């Protein structure tokens, strides 16, 4: 076998090769590398919010946004929680109706496409505000972010299906405990689901002319 290694790290003597770049080039690259390494920390230090993250973000925001480095990397953290879906009911132009949900294992294939739709429904959950502790989950008001995303999903569905009305529902699928599963509960037990309405939308809600006329009417 050529190039037989004498150690794990490197073949031969293990003595590292000398740098080829001139000291000036190395100095410039070193500064850039150091700046970049700090940039790698800004996103994770900012999610959730921290004083250092905020401080560094003032200088680094252009770079980390432009380079797509603005991530917290909190995969499956802080806790794996319930999953979320969006159910929709469409009234079609021909008088018919259509019901659906995203994500949908049957409709969204392959798995990566399913995950894209899954993230759409999960994202709307991530936009939740603190909410009103006096109200049950089903009656919590939508945050501004949830309102914007509900409108976005509604507009997409109305246009895609040429529908006259769409109603969106947010479905939360709670996790059963190990004890409940050992007691015979299935993961799709209906008691684990709860639903809350996101809104009802018509094409007029997205027509600037109609919206302006409606605003003017309300003002009068």
């Amino acid at each position: 076998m050529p190039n037989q290694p004498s150690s794990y790290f490197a073949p031969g003597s293990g003595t590292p090769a000398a740098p080829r770049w001139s000291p000036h080039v190395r100095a410039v690259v070193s500064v850039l590398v150091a700046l970049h390494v700090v940039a790698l920390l800004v996103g994770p230090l900012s999610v959730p919010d921290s004083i250092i993250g905020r401080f560094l973000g003032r200088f680094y925001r252009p770079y980390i946004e432009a380079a797509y480095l603005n991530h917290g990397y909190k995969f499956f953290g802080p806790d794996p929680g319930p999953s979320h879906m969006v159910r929709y009911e469409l009234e079609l132009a021909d008088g018919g109706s259509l019901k659906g949900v995203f994500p949908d294992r049957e409709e969204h294939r392959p798995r990566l496409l399913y995950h894209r739709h899954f993230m759409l429904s999960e994202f709307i959950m991530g936009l939740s505000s603190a909410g009103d502790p006096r109200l049950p989950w089903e009656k919590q008001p939508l945050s501004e972010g949830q309102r914007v995303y509900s409108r976005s999903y509604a507009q997409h569905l109305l246009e895609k299906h040429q529908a006259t009305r769409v109603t969106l529902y947010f479905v939360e699928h709670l996790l059963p405990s190990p004890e409940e599963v050992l007691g015979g509960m299935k993961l799709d037990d209906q008691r684990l689901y709860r639903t809350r309405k996101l809104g009802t939308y018509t094409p007029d809600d997205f027509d600037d002319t109609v919206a302006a006329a409606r605003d003017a009417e309300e003002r009068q």
Partner: protein
Amino acid sequence: MNLVRGYLSELRRAAVAEWNRFWFTPADPVTLALIRILAGAMLLYTHLVWTLGLTDFFGDHSWVSAEAAALAHGTGDATSYVWSYHWLLRSPAALWTAHIAGLVVFAMLTLGLFSRVTSVLAYLVAVSYVNRVPGALFGLDQINCMLAMYLMIGPSGAAWSLDRLLAARKGRGRLPPAEPSTSANLAIRLMQLQMCVIYFFAGLGKLHGESWWGGDAIWGAVANLEYQSLDMTWLASWPLTVAVITQVTVYWELFFCALVWPRLLRPLVLSLAIPLHLGIAVCMGMITFGLVMLIGCVSFVPPWLVRRLFSGVSSAGEDEQSAKGNEGLRKRGSRDAGKVASGKIRVES
């Protein structure tokens, strides 16, 4: 006082020498080439899947409207540095043309054709896609773009590429040696460092949660029907096993950044990445995410091991020439190291 001054002086010299060794030692580009092939294939697959929902996600009436995208980027009332050429594509024809061009770029990168150019284009294409549809993204996209970013820096087409075959044809059939390269080392080091950052903060983020600390977080993944692709609910009878897997995951992620560097620990640390990420892939249906994390971990595999594992891919001649190149550099390195030790030359930062 002299003792402190001497210590600080020694510390500075050692730090500068170690910094130079870490970042600027020329390396065989074969690890980078392997990552180019794997990451290029993942980028190609990721974007091929976008084809199935191209107009749904990137068309005029996308799932994510312009207003929704601006809100997700948090740039509603501030200057935005988030960019995507998708905002310029006004017609279905333009969208499809750009999409096919993007797929061609990823295919060329995977094959190593005009790698220096296609690696830059691949990064621009990948970031354009993700910035257009915030809300439809997950960890896969972050790692895809990270790998694409660092592939721009090094000569990823210097080995196992069509570029190399074309160079061989120009040289009348003789394959030129894959020269050790400083920028290849720089790219690999940046990948390694970012993988450390990712794992560290993934571990740290889990400590915010009660279930990771308490030991039942893995149950939360197992009992989630929407993620599930393999029924593992039998783990309900094995709470201690769940707790061990949960805690090993957290501690492995937290200490990866320290334990992956000692040469004897590295194989052990990396071998734990395989069940962790394949577990995510197989049990939670996140095959692409599991695989792309493993591709990131490939950056820790030394070039000689890559060559040995894939000895059938490269010719013996290529191996020998590469070994000769490494040997020459090592000899020079030994001489320079000797000079540094005897104070004949000074290592500059």
